[in-house]
């Protein structure tokens, strides 16, 4: 079969909607268009039934009770609702939240907002493999701490935080544990019971569902967790999230969860093999390094720095044909490279030289072979053009040069 270009390897940004998901959704745009809150006629009943069914599908994937699922517009909204909702609800107990520096902006910026509201937030550093230090976490807990917010899997480097150990610490101190599991749900087994999670955010479009729909898991038993609504209105989702239900989106999220439930194990194995093939082949290039812990990692992600070439320049060599993402930010006015990579202690130069590969359900071995070849060729070509590579090869210590910062 002829290889179709461009190749999509940016599945951490978003995934394509699975055709089976789309098929399940379609009737809910047209003949089954009812409002799930219309309790008095068949149109509303059909919509409500669909939402209930989706809620079960979602709950099953994460081993929750359907009543613990609140549908939202996506992970950003879920992050906001969890953090601000817990902060407002538990303010009488304390105002301190613990999170970490490599969280998604939806968590970090929400925490900044909470600080403006008078909250106190501790941003834990991460070790050079991207994982938090559990002793440091425990030490950060005070009698004012109400919430620990640590992500499940990182979007840039794919590392999986030790959620079970984190939840044990949270339990021990009577603190709630919220995790942004946007990259992990549907990719690795996530079990809110076994993992000890109290609140969890995730999104449809990262697991082959539609964009614009997500969920927040809120524990109902041991302990019963409550959040203050962040949107006022008709009191949908048991008062925690007002707004007419996005029925087609919710049906899609449900179907996406069901497919992940059935296929996750085999898919994870297949993708980790392809990922390892890609990674090992690219590591054959001199001076290339994997960023983040290689053991505790999502199966479909890798992040590699190719020293002495700049990420954006590198992407330009193949970005018509291969879609990946770079830790460099040459297009932004700030020129600041990825804060996640910097949090691992990577120098700006290595952060500027990184690429993130996110494989997905529709990635094939042919695509990986093509990608290996294209990236190797481009790295070699750009190194021939790189003054830093030449200096490195001549044995010049680049750290000893006085660079003209501007």
């Amino acid at each position: 079969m002829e290889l179709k270009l461009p190749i999509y390897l940016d599945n951490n940004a978003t995934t394509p909607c699975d055709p089976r998901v789309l098929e399940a959704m379609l009737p809910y745009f047209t003949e089954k268009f009812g409002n799930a809150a219309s309790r008095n006629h068949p149109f509303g009943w059909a919509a409500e039934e669909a939402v209930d069914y989706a809620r079960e599908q979602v709950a099953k994937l994460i081993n929750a009770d359907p009543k613990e699922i609140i549908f939202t517009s996506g992970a950003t909204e879920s992050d906001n609702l969890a953090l601000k909702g817990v902060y407002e609800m538990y303010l009488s107990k304390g105002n301190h939240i613990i999170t970490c520096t490599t969280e998604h902006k939806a968590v970090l910026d929400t925490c900044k907002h909470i600080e403006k509201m008078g909250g106190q937030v501790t941003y834990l550093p991460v070790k050079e493999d991207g994982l938090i230090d559990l002793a440091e976490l425990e030490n950060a807990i005070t009698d004012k701490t109400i919430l620990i917010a640590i992500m499940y899997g990182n979007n840039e480097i794919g590392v999986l935080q030790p959620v079970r150990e984190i939840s044990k610490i949270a339990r021990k101190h009577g603190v709630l544990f919220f995790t942004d599991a946007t990259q992990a749900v549907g990719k690795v087994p996530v079990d809110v019971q076994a993992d000890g999670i109290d609140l969890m955010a995730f999104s449809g479009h990262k697991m082959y569902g539609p964009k614009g729909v997500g969920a927040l898991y809120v524990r109902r038993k041991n302990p019963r967790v409550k959040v203050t609504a962040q949107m006022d209105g008709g009191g949908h989702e048991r008062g925690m999230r007002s707004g007419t239900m996005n029925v087609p989106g919710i049906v899609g999220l449900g179907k996406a969860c069901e497919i992940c439930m059935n296929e996750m194990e085999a898919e994870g194995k297949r993708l980790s093999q392809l990922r390892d093939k890609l990674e090992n082949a690219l590591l054959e290039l001199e001076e290339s390094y994997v960023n983040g812990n290689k053991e505790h990692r999502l199966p479909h992600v890798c992040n590699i720095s190719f020293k002495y070439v700049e990420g954006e320049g590198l992407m330009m060599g193949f970005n018509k044909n291969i879609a990946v993402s770079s830790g460099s930010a040459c297009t932004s006015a700030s020129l600041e490279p990825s804060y996640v990579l910097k949090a691992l202690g990577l120098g700006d130069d290595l952060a500027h030289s990184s690429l993130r590969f996110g494989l997905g359900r529709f990635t094939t071995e042919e695509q990986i072979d093509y990608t290996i070849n294209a990236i190797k060729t481009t790295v070699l070509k750009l190194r021939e053009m790189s003054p830093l590579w030449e200096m490195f090869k001549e044995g010049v210590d680049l750290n000893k040069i006085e660079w003209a910062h501007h």
Partner: protein
Amino acid sequence: MQILHLHIFKLETMAYSEKVIDHYSNPKNVGTLDKSKANVGTGLVGAPECGDVMRLQIEVDEESGVIRDAKFKTFGCGSAIASSSLATEWLKGKTVDQAMEIDNMDIVEELNLPPVKIHCSVLAEDAIKAAINDYRVKNGLPELVEEKKH
């Protein structure tokens, strides 16, 4: 407001002009000149932490003061590579004095660089001036002080 939005959209989607792509794909004058020679001037500007480093070299004909050859190596994005590639093309055949006149905005115009990439052209101009000054110092001439500050 709408015009502003369209403008931003255009910048983001068309960050690379045809000319930038052409210089990136077929860079002119990549290489290294012998920096120990008296008639070779070398300029190394930028910093790895900032995501761009340019090294630009000129070889000057001592009789005529004309730049006989120019080479570059650049670590950076496509626009940085294109800016330095273009600079070497422009330098060849110019006298050192004429080369001093090259302005970063000429590079911006020629390559259609969007505002976020103007720093690439600034870096190229800095590299030209650094190479010329290196040549001047080697030949007992005073360094030329930059007239404008970026």
